[in-house]
């Protein structure tokens, strides 16, 4: 019998690998993707990038021009994320299994969360452009909607993870709903929620660049502009600055996490 389990497991793994192989090869054949050409062109891309796509001394002149743009992008991401977090907190309290008021609230808030989460941020940006044209507001709202969906889901799971125990205890003492939320649920889940919030801010700064390309605002627009002018040195400087910014934000939020968790 025991051998049977091992044989079964091995066969299961083999079947899984085979299925993966068929899927992969099938996709390559159907899309007529040339694997060899794909890999060899990577080296060509690297050679091209190395010889053109780097910031030179001359491109540094654009620094005063793009710093305000970078600042705008970072601040917009932070604003969108934090405002979304406040709303997400309310939605998640209404939606979580442990703190929901009743089924209907829970279904509605879960519905809102999954609607916002499942529409890609790029789609949000395009749709919102129709109403708000190319303005920072469009970018702000696109980030806001995306964050709202994600954070609601993340917060809801955080609250569920904290569990029922302390809620039960406080109910037994005669504490009311808001007492329990503020004295037990929030203190227990806040550090994890802040951690999600920091992650969302990092992600949004990256996404803000993409949204900026579409909505013509912030650092994304600068990149788009230089790139389309074939000013690759300036464009690469913009990319480098974005990378540095994201790394700095990541370092800061890792430190914050270490302190609060």
């Amino acid at each position, binding site marked *: 019998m025991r051998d049977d389990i091992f044989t079964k497991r091995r066969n299961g793994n083999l079947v899984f690998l085979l299925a993966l192989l068929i899927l992969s090869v099938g996709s390559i054949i159907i899309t007529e993707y040339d694997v060899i050409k794909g890999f060899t062109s990577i080296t060509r891309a690297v050679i091209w990038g190395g010889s053109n796509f780097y910031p030179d001394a001359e491109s540094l002149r654009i620094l005063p021009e793009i710093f305000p743009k970078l600042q705008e992008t970072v601040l917009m991401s932070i604003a969108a994320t934090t405002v979304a977090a406040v709303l997400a907190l309310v939605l998640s309290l209404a939606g979580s299994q442990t703190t929901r008021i009743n089924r209907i609230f829970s279904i509605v808030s879960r519905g809102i969360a999954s609607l916002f989460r499942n529409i890609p941020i790029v789609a949000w940006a395009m749709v919102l452009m129709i109403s708000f044209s190319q303005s920072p507001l469009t970018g702000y709202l696109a980030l806001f909607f995306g964050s709202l969906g994600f954070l609601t889901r993340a917060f809801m799971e955080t609250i569920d993870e904290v569990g029922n*125990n*302390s809620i*039960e*205890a*406080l*109910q*037994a*003492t*005669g*504490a*009311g709903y*808001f*007492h329990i*939320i*503020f*004295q*037990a649920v929030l*203190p*227990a889940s806040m*550090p994890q929620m802040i951690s999600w919030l920091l992650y969302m801010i990092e992600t949004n700064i990256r996404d803000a660049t993409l949204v900026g390309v579409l909505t013509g605002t912030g650092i994304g627009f600068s990149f788009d502009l230089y790139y389309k002018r074939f000013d690759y040195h300036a464009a690469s400087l913009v990319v480098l600055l974005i990378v540095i910014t994201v790394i700095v934000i990541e370092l800061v939020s890792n430190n914050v996490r270490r302190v609060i968790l």
Partner: protein
Amino acid sequence: MALLELKNVTKNYNNECCALDNVSFSVDKGEFVSIIGPSGAGKSTLLRCINRMVEASSGEISVDGLISSSLSKKKLRKLRTKIGMIFQHYNLVDRLTVIENVLHGRLGYKSTLAGVLGRYSQEEKSQAYRIIEILGLNEQIYKRCDQLSGGQKQRVGIARALVQNPKIILCDEPIASLDPNASKIIMDHLGNISKEMGITIIVNLHQVEVALKYSDRIIGVNRGKVVFDGAPCDLTTRQIRDIYGSESEDLIIDLGERHAG
């Protein structure tokens, strides 16, 4: 009049018969009552019916002269302030300090705003300090509860119940997760509370010998029915068989020791 009275209390989960089947008994002020019985006999359900954490399907429960099933939500909260509860898994908010967890016992007396903001009066704080001192937790008072041992956590649970100024304390398997030393400390505290403060203790227990040692009275439950209700000295091997059914042959109980000691 008895402090707590149950009349024909029945509880069905999902129309299945019967977590509790026609349970009737009454408990006086200051009594120490142990409820024993096999797992799944309905001990936890019985305890939770008393403070309406679980709603009884039929029957009548009166606490301190009030019939609990007829109470409005607000009055139920008020009744619960009179009934402390401690749990097998302590059910503390682990990220908060000992004193904060103890003061949670006062939330039932507070208005929504005062409770949400955690504003406790000087009196309440000094009462909490006094109780913490009685339970020997002076050194841990500002420690976070996730840094405490199991026995210390359970003492915080007891302090939280005591700070409610309860008339009854319900204990749901208070020592099931503790080592023998910590178990003894907890049971000694519970014994003192009933003797010296005149607070009624009702405790669900797995260990028959502990029940024999500490109780004024033992209630044996099997399949939702009360099959024994009397003084520890009246509990015979035959009655233990009634309570635990056929499993009793395997029980590690030495009734002879009781008579010797």
